């Protein structure tokens, strides 16, 4: 049976629309979101001081993220505050959240900087931050996943 010209065009259009919807219904892989949640003075000594940086990570993907290494740079009030690389061993569950913290030791010279002194006397309650870095995941051939965020954090003095 030969279909009329109109019907055959309609069928071709429907098939094309179906194929297009299949192509776009593919799950989009998204980068994890990492934010700085706090900076706390942990220890003040003669030779320097230790800060504890708190982070929250959110994984929007339908698979867990086994994180094995974190590289980060934290800017506070537009100035570089801390940066580095640290080994880790935690898993952020699929579509789940996690937390981690990194201790930063600063020597006397760094400690007397303007940023460091902000935390000593409770001169400010909040401070703006910019965070950049990568999360290396324990999946063969997977490149480190970049993250970047900005916001405002509360400054917590030494307990």
């Amino acid at each position, binding site marked *: 049976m030969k279909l009329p010209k109109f019907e055959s065009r309609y069928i071709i259009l429907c098939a094309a629309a179906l194929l297009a919807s299949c192509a776009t219904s*593919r*799950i989009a*892989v*998204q*980068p994890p979101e990492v934010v700085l949640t706090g900076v706390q003075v942990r220890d003040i000594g003669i030779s320097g001081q230790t800060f504890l940086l708190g982070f929250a990570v959110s994984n929007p*993907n*339908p*698979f*867990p993220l086994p994180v094995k290494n974190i590289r980060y740079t934290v800017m506070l009030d537009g100035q570089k505050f801390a940066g580095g690389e640290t080994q880790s061993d935690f898993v952020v569950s*699929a579509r789940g959240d996690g937390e981690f913290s990194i201790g930063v030791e600063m020597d006397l010279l760094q400690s007397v900087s303007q940023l460091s002194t902000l935390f000593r006397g409770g001169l400010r309650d909040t401070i703006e931050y910019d965070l950049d870095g990568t999360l290396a995941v*324990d*999946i*063969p*051939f*997977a*490149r480190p*996943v970049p993250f970047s965020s900005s916001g405002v954090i509360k400054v917590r003095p030494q307990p």
Partner: protein
Amino acid sequence: MRQWVQDAEAAVEGKERRVLGNMIADSYADVRGNDKADIEQMLRVWFLRSGNIVLVSRIDEVTVMGDSAATVVLTAGMAGMGEGVFDLDADALRFRLELETSGDDWLLIGARWGKLKGELR
């Protein structure tokens, strides 16, 4: 054994998760703490990324122990990487696969991997 590696390679390139799942023993365990479900999740990450996967591998060593156990050491690299999230690295990795058979098909029961000159774990 070489056929098993070729089949696995073809399944990865074809993004055939079910085929690969059937090549992994339910009892799979490795020193990183992964079980079969974890390995299937890793495959999912590979397959969710856009673009094609081209796996290039070279078998370095095959050891068969008795009739039911074998290890395969191979070097593998990915080609055809893109620039999106969770893209794949072009650096080659070394794998040590542990396989077992009960008579029919060989099944992966464990694996270690690492950089070419690094420790396999």
